[in-house]
């Protein structure tokens, strides 16, 4: 699973930066097109739900999603890793 912030919904209240136990959300620096400073993700692969959701088959933690007043935080399914053909140049 992959953590994602919906920039069209986020209003930049920075509540997620306070409540995440892993401190994955960091205060953003640049305002986006709407003028909202959307938080940045700091190594989101540490998130419990991202790592173990599919293994356990249920929602884990999820405090950021529940707390976000603007329903901007969600998880998206990642595509399974595919083998790529790599051309090796000698």
């Amino acid at each position, binding site marked *: 699973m992959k953590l994602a912030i919906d920039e069209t919904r986020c209003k930049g209240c920075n509540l997620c930066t306070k409540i995440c136990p892993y401190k994955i959300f960091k205060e953003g620096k640049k305002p986006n097109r709407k003028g909202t400073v959307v938080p940045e993700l700091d190594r989101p692969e540490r998130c419990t739900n991202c790592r173990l959701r599919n293994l356990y088959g249920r929602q884990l933690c999820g405090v950021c999603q*529940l*707390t976000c*007043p603007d329903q901007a935080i969600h998880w998206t399914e990642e595509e399974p890793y595919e083998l790529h053909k790599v051309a090796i140049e000698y």
Partner: protein
Amino acid sequence: MSYEDWFRQDRLPHIYCAGCGNGTIINCTLAAVDEMGWKKEETIFVSGIGCSSRAPGYILTDSLHTTHGRALAFATGVKMANPDLHVVVFTGDGDLAAIGGNHFIHACRRNIDLTVVCMNNQIYGMTGGQGSPTTPKGCLSSTTPYGCTEIPFDLCELATAAGANYVSRWTSYHVKELEKAVKVGLETPGFSFIEALVQCPTAFGRRNKFRQVTDHVEYLKVHSLLKAKRDRMLEAGEKIPEDMYVVGELTKRSRPAMGVKP
């Protein structure tokens, strides 16, 4: 299926201010409703007037947006007309305690099978930050510019005294606990009252030295006292600080309820 399916995606993002806690409470309530496994056609959300009462407009089910303070009166009508429906009432502190106080105590007395989620932001947020019956002593608002001098209402004690079956209080910081409390309230036959203290950055925080949203949430976190700890402190004879909010499951009993099928 998750609680996100209960939102009207075309209406989002909602009009609440940045950092308003009402969105959090909607999330928790919908998560609890989703866990109950109810159908969308059999669930009704009722609300009055105010910031908090805009919530059913963002929810996919049938809803009633009623007159100021009378959400409980309309909800009683809905429940009596069709007892098969599951009725959840969203209300605010000004809506429930000030204008609808009379309906509130009588809904508690009748013990109707409703679940009431009160988003208590301790101020009239939508109309410009006037002091409400739950504004704490000493807090500034546009009608109390030198600090509120009145004693605030304790809505949970009021509901307990009036006869509600289930009463609990949490804050917008305690999302998981709030979700569980709402779920217990939905399961309990009879009147369930869940008070959720929320931050209001625009009307309350701006005047009361909570410049950042996170400051106010931190305040709610620090100033909440668990009921078990309160009981321990009372046993030990310690004095409970006046500015603490007692959180937790305050009342759970089984008085005969109205609107429940035998």
